[in-house]
């Protein structure tokens, strides 16, 4: 202990305090503060960059989920539209067919009716003409048969005969 106290140099102690405090103040101002600040800023930067990346990732996930949902929706909508269109088409075809059927039936029926009428009229006309032809033919035959007296007499005889025979 005595040796230690003997070794203790006031001058060195003094210089050590002065130099160390000076060094501390200088380094604090010109080295440690800028270094620690730079390091802190960098760490802050890294932290915020990581947070931003995380956010971006979440955003991306949201966006892709959104687009997925939209796609799903669009697909469903397309399905629905197609289905509806198909139904409309089927219905239209069915309607058209039914209408065409009805129309055709009606036309056929009318045609048959008019054919029937025409036929009847034609038959009636033919009957009339046949009657008038028959009268004319009978007239002409009678005229030709009764032009001379012999034949008239013959016919009278014949008629008288007929009456007698009966």
């Amino acid at each position, binding site marked *: 202990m005595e040796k230690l106290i003997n*070794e*203790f140099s006031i001058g*060195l102690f003094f210089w050590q305090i002065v130099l*160390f405090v000076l060094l501390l103040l200088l380094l604090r101002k*010109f080295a440690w503060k800028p*270094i620690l600040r*730079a*390091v802190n800023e960098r760490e802050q930067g890294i932290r915020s960059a990581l947070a931003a990346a995380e956010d971006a990732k979440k955003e991306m996930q949201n966006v892709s989920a959104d687009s997925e949902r939209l796609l799903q929706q669009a697909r469903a909508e397309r399905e629905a539209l197609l289905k509806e269109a198909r139904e409309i088409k089927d219905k239209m075809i069915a309607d058209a067919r039914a209408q065409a059927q009805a129309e055709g039936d009606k036309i056929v029926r009318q045609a048959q009716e008019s054919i029937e009428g025409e036929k009847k009229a034609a038959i009636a006309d033919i009957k009339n003409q046949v009657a008038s032809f028959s009268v004319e033919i009978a007239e002409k035959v009678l005229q030709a048969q009764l032009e001379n007296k012999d034949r008239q007499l013959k016919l009278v005889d014949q008629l008288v005969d007929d009456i007698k025979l009966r």
Partner: protein
Amino acid sequence: MRTSLVSNFLAVILFSLGPVLFAKESSGETGGPQGTKEEIREYIAHHLQDSHDFSIASYTDASGEVVHWGFPLPVILWDNGLKVFSSARFHHGETVAEVGGNYYRLYHSKIYKTDAGGTIRYDEDQHPVNQKPLDFSITKNVVMMLVTGLLLFWLFTGMARNYGKNNGIPMGIGKFFEPIVLYIRDDIAIPNIGEKKYSRYMPLLLTVFFFIWFLNMFGLTPLGVNVTGNIAVTTALALIVFLVTNFTGTRDYWKHILDPLGDGMPWFGKLIIYIILVPIEILGIFIKPFALLIRLYANMTAGHVVLMSLIGLIFIFKSWVGGPLSFGLSFAISLIEVLVALLQAYIFTMLSALYFGFASEEHDHGHGHEHEEPELANL
């Protein structure tokens, strides 16, 4: 890259040359083996002390003249006025320096006031009784502290500038020092002091760490300096830590010292315990930095003593076995000392941070009750 290679090479050369240079001086005036032992002991004692000139080596040449390698340093004395002169005038303690009518002589690295003949009177324990003037000389250790300070300033301001230039990305030497700075922040300062207050102590912790580490490392070079193994230096460092600890102490820190039991006991109970407890706590304030200064001093001094004793063994053995053996041993111890240099710097910083942590702790007073409640609930 090239410059670092060159400097590495130089360092290796110096390192391997160191013992050789010491050897010349030690074996210079050999008597018998007993004389060598005595000489080595004295040499080690001399090495551990501060000196007034920056001597790198000395040897005795062919004509028996002792040749010193090194350069003198300014001596600054306060002896009824400031006296400044070069230490060359002491001629390594061989002559008396006359300054302004006063005579001074260097004896075992200390300056004594003497008469013109340079007589030194001793008491019965062989201690000189001459008057010692106040000595503020720029000694070898002061020079090394200056060099280290300049080196630290140059390194770390350069590093700070680099950060400014490169958007906070470390370049060059910063790549090496940044992990250390971050380690001190994340593993020493924050765990011990706490997230809220650590930044206040960071400059001191960083400066203390690098200052001690660099000086420890300088102590391992053949320059033969022993700054951190000097009691005055470690005392100054510990004093700074002591002052900072107690001047930044919070109310809770002082309450913990003066009223350690708090509300846990009625006043008449405390009275008896506190007669013993409070003096112990107050003593603790002083013991903590004292332990710091002794630890650093003892570790560095012991390292130097062991290393130099092993080198000295070479000259005691003077044989084919002893030489390589002690060389190998001293090489191994050198490697361990490199580790110790870092370790002691770390321990000093770590414990300083711990003390700062005690000083700046703030108890959340509502907190104690929160801890009690679960226990009560369990009952």
